[in-house]
């Protein structure tokens, strides 16, 4: 009897001393959560989670890290092979660098936050250059939008993520070129409906017009049915 009374008092005592601590914790939490709080908790005296733990998070690379960057976007297939070379090493292949590429879809639109909420990063990808300095992507032939020639954006970083070069790749244009074929009547079957009316050619493009040596221009081969292959080399000071 005495034992249980002691136990009761002890429990009561613990309870009594705990109350101010809890109140204090609430107070503290509610002041810190007013704007700069950690947010890792919900910020009030809510019931602590009491359920089976998990799932346990695991390291997950950026969703850019993939070679097929189509994300369901339709268009003419394009295989991109970009080789990175090092001007600081007699233009030898530069392995280990991180290469980001991104471009617009067949209608000339980039992935971005729109009216929807969940992120869709279509036609954006990241690869690390192999021993030959090569990165490869599976994508679709880019469309075009007013004021710009057909192009692919490229951002090259060293392995630590420091920017080495921001550039763009241009496409051969004119009779028989892939750009013209894709934007022709035949290309309409693949969803490229703009034609070439109002197209800005590289010579009039504010990025490519000074590239008279065609350093930024890729080699593009292939066909609508078989898809096209883009081959290009970018020299950076690695």
């Amino acid at each position, binding site marked *: 009897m005495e034992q249980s009374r002691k136990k009761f008092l002890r429990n009561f005592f613990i309870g009594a001393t705990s109350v101010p601590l809890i109140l204090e914790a609430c107070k503290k939490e509610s002041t810190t959560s007013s704007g700069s709080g950690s947010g*890792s908790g919900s910020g009030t005296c809510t019931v602590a989670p009491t359920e089976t733990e998990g799932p346990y998070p695991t390291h997950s690379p950026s969703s850019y890290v993939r070679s097929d960057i189509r994300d369901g976007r339709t268009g003419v297939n394009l295989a991109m092979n970009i080789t990175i070379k090092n001007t600081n090493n007699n233009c030898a292949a530069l392995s280990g660098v991180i290469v980001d590429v991104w471009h617009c879809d067949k209608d000339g639109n980039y992935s971005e936050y729109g009216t929807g909420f969940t992120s869709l990063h279509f036609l954006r990808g990241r690869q690390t250059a192999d021993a030959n300095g090569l990165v490869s992507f599976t994508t679709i032939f880019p469309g075009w939008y007013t004021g710009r020639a057909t192009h692919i954006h490229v951002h090259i970083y060293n392995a630590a993520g420091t920017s080495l070069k921001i550039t763009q790749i241009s496409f051969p244009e004119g009779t028989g070129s892939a750009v013209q074929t894709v934007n022709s009547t035949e290309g309409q079957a693949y969803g490229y409906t703009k034609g070439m009316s109002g197209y800005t050619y590289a010579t009039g493009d504010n990025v490519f017009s000074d590239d008279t040596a065609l350093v930024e221009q890729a080699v593009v081969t292939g066909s609508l049915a078989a898809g096209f292959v883009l081959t290009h080399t970018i020299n950076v000071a690695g």
Partner: protein
Amino acid sequence: MQTSKKIVLCYRKIIAADAEKTWDRYVFESSFAEYRMQAQYYDPEEKYSSFSALVQQVPAAEKLHFLVSAAVTGYIGQLNNKVPDITDNLGRTCLLFDNYRFEIINSDSNNKKTHQVAVNFFTRPMIWHDTIGQLLLLSSSQEEKEGTEWDTIMVPVQPFLSIHTLKENT
């Protein structure tokens, strides 16, 4: 009981340098690394130290919210549609989401401590039957039909949890 309403709750989960949970740490570290990489596109000469200065000088840098979000997509997927942190009055994770929006609150490529991001989780639509004290009495809107005996949950009103959309039931 008041007329029931269909609501979507938003939980704005803020993650900063003092984050302790494993998931929070991953989101913090990955989003900072991605921010450092992507911010260089908008500021190749590294003229602006903070995200706020960068956005002020280069408005296109607003796109960094979207661009950096790719770093956390994988971690969002690992949540299996369960809104983290928020529990019902029985201490169970109870809210489900399909939609979210990542945002950068503050950052500085040269000062990781200032990096602060938020993930806004938007719950699936629910029926809001009533509010009892500080508790929202909610049901999954999937069950809605005449004469339903509702399965309900009670979720405490709390900071960073807000009603995002509301629709009167007719």
